């Protein structure tokens, strides 16, 4: 793994991730032969069933031992193994560029970890950002050899896109009509709300994971004094005087917001996870996402 970028994930983390695989609750039809069992019978080493030979069948799959015994032609059927589509959708709006490490960096690390797991297991991995134009498609990566391309691609992504959450998700859905797993990594701080965006994802019949990344500063603000808060995305201004009741009120608002997202997701079969930027992404993958059933 010499090509792996040190800034995204350390070799030790990668070593731990190598043991994992992406899981989906739905069984999808892959395009290429992968490492996943398919409903279809196909070519693999695992035996599934016999059936009568019909004209035109490939002679390579005829069970000659059976023919010798019974003097009839049977065809050996094997389980088909296929690949999985994994999409990581990163919010690259300016609001993600806050925190230490920045929420955006955190999103990239998380995407790298999950993408890495997918590549190791021969799944199809595609990383996209919300701001990507509908026409532009990012490359599909497959196979262990593509790990470095994944990391390179992630490193190249810049924060600062101004597309709204709804528009970005809509574009993503237009581009990718297939089935698979989609992990949306965002702070969900969009004043237009997240509901429409989530509905687009639901319509895709994908296995949807929402990871909301919030910085420590957002969870527990350390602000003091009479302030004029300026929104970095739309320059909206909020004049506040920090006080104990206000902080209390802020926390209540935050909790109700997070709780609202969680309830919205769980009602619609989506999996929601709140990530804090101080929690290492590998730990998130290894423990929290494993609990949620995304990886195994």
């Amino acid at each position, binding site marked *: 793994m010499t090509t792996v970028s040190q800034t995204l994930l350390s070799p030790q983390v990668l070593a731990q991730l190598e043991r994992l695989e992406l899981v989906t609750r739905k069984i999808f039809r892959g395009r290429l032969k992968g490492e996943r069992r398919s409903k279809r019978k196909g070519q693999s080493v695992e035996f599934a069933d016999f059936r009568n030979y019909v004209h035109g069948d490939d002679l390579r799959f005829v069970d000659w031992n059976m023919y010798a015994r019974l003097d009839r032609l049977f065809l050996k059927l094997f389980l088909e193994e296929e690949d999985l589509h994994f999409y990581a959708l990163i919010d690259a709006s*300016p*609001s*993600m*560029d*806050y*925190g230490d490490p920045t*929420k955006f960096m955190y999103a990239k690390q998380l995407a790298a970890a999950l993408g890495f797991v997918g590549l190791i297991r021969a799944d199809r991995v595609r990383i996209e950002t919300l701001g990507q134009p509908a026409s532009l498609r990012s490359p599909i990566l497959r196979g262990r050899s593509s790990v470095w391309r994944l990391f390179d691609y992630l490193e190249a992504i810049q924060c600062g896109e101004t597309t709204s959450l709804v528009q970005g998700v809509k574009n993503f859905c237009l581009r990718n009509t297939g089935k698979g797993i989609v992990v949306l990594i965002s*702070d969900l*701080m*969009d*004043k237009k709300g997240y509901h429409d965006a989530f509905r687009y994802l639901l319509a895709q019949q994908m296995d949807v994971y929402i990871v909301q990344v919030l*910085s420590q500063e*957002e969870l527990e603000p350390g*602000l*003091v*004094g*009479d*302030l*004029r*808060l*300026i*929104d*970095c*995305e739309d320059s*909206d*201004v*909020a*004049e*506040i*005087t*920090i*006080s*104990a*009741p*206000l902080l209390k*009120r*802020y926390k*209540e*608002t*935050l909790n109700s*917001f997070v709780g609202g997202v969680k309830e919205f997701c769980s009602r619609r079969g989506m999996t929601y996870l709140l990530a804090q930027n101080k929690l290492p992404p590998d730990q998130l993958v290894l423990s929290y996402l494993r609990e949620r059933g995304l990886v195994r």
Partner: protein
Amino acid sequence: MREFFGNHFSNALSDLPGLWGYAAWAAALAVPPFIILLYFLKLKRMPVQVPSTYLWLRSIEDLRVNSIWQRLRKNLLLFLQLLLIFLAILALLRPNWAGTTLQGDRFILMIDVSASMAATDVQPNRLEAAKREALKVIDAMDSGDHAMVIAFSDTVQVVEEYTSNRNKLRRAVEDLKPTQRSTNFSQALTVASGLANPGRTGFKKEDVKTAEAVPATMYIFSDGNFPPTAQTVGNLTPEYIPIGEAESENLAITEFGARRNEEHAEKLQAFALLENFGPEDVNVRAELYLGPTMIDVKDVEIGAKSSTGVPFDLADVESGVLSLKINATDSLAVDDAAYVAINLPRPAEVLLVTADNKALDTALSNLGDRINLDTRPPSFLAEEVYRIKAAGGLYDLVIFDRCLPKAEKDDANTPTPMPQANTWFVGAMPKLEAWGWKPGMAWPPEKASVPQIIDIDKEHPVMQFMDLGNVRVAESLVTKPPSGGTALIDTSEGAVFSIAPREGFEDAVLGFHFDAAEAVTDWQVRLSFPVFVNNLVQYLGSGQEAVASSVVRPGQQVELRLDTVAEEVTVIDPAGQSRSVRRTKQNTYNYTAAEQVGVYQVRDKGKVLSHFTVNLFDSAESDLPPKDNLQLTKGTNVKATQALEPSRQETWKYLLLLALTVLVFEWYIYNRRVYL
């Protein structure tokens, strides 16, 4: 409000010179608007870029609902600053109120607890009023001030020494109890000035002063009903706070007694003196009781500020307790009743030791059943019976006619053993150093011949109603009285009859005798002789008199002579409390707890022995209206004053303290962001 600021605003202004003053005040008043101005200018919030104002906007949306309160809350610091400045300006105005203060830092609170302080002309009574005034002084004391509480009646009690502990002082004052005693301010003044001027403990000029004399203010809470004293007040500043109403009315029994009728010895006469201290004439009904039974009533009219005597004839009263009550509705109750006890007379035990003395015998037997006379020859003195009786104090009077009691080993070096009784030596003198005897001396000394009687001490009870001008004496021993004694008959050769105290008894020594055979004197045939013997036996025999002649006042010691040999008797006071009294060596019982006016019963194991009574009988106490001026010493008049002097009670310290608190509070809020 006017009083609050009073003239102090103008004072404060005039303190500053003219124009500058107005400028300074203008500057001070300009501060609050300036702060408000600054506050509006200051409202520039620090810009902070945040990822999203999404949550913040939603948070303050909720808070905007009650926006007036929010605005107030936002401006809390401004209000605190304005309050701070307001307090500071208020402190500069020097507000105050007309309070009271004490002069000096050391106080002696002298509270009168005598009988007159029980008067109810002020509610609930004078003592409570005095306590209230004293508590006011204590409350007005500054920390660091010292005070002492002295309660005085005819005695002085330092209830609380100098202390700055106001709680202790308060408790000491509140715990004071009224007494029925009279007033003796002289003692109180002695104690107060002694405690206040410790330097006076030195007797000579060159004595080192034990401590610096500290000037003190002496507050006297009293009605002033006591005579001037001869004390000096030293460096005490007396302040007199009169207690009581000037128009108090009071009717008092200031004297009440009973005595045998001169003509008919078996009849008793009672006599009362009623005094009216009020400003109006009063008709009063005086009721005389024997025990619980009313036996006589008299309506008496007493003029304003005058007195009337009321006699009662008591036909067949032998013994009992007479009480006189007047149904007056006045302020002082304790002087509306008086008591006198009439006890059955007890005969005096008299031992006459004589060879043969007709004159004495006759004179003594004339006294009838007033005495129990026991006549014995001189040989009786050597008998065991005499020794036991004499040592046991069973005789009231022993008369030695030309003989002396002998010690067991009788020689020139042994003094005469004296009996536990009063003695009268006739023509003999006891071998006692007090009477001029020395061991080894020839006794008796030489007699003086033909002494001429020059003078007799008519003041002495023994020598009352006597004229010795016709008495001649041929020869006599010279009886020079020892110290403390009195020469009763003085002659050209010296005293021939003297009386002197001895350990509670009295010894009378007459230098000559009455034996008709030797014809030493012709006194026994004179009219004065039986009177003399009568006086002497009555004085020295001191059998219990039918009517207690001496007046016992509350607080005095009562010396009881009883017809009993019990070691202990019980005295029951008017309140029903009993107290046992032990017999003294002098065959008397001394009762010291006669604090209450009323009848006291003396019992020996349940048997009533006698009664005695305690009466106030003090015009000074009964004269209720408080004096305007207190004549402490001759020439020192203390005018009635208020204990507390009006003064200016400053408040600026407290205002500044409050301002400081506000400042600290503001600092805390600013730093900690703790909002309401």
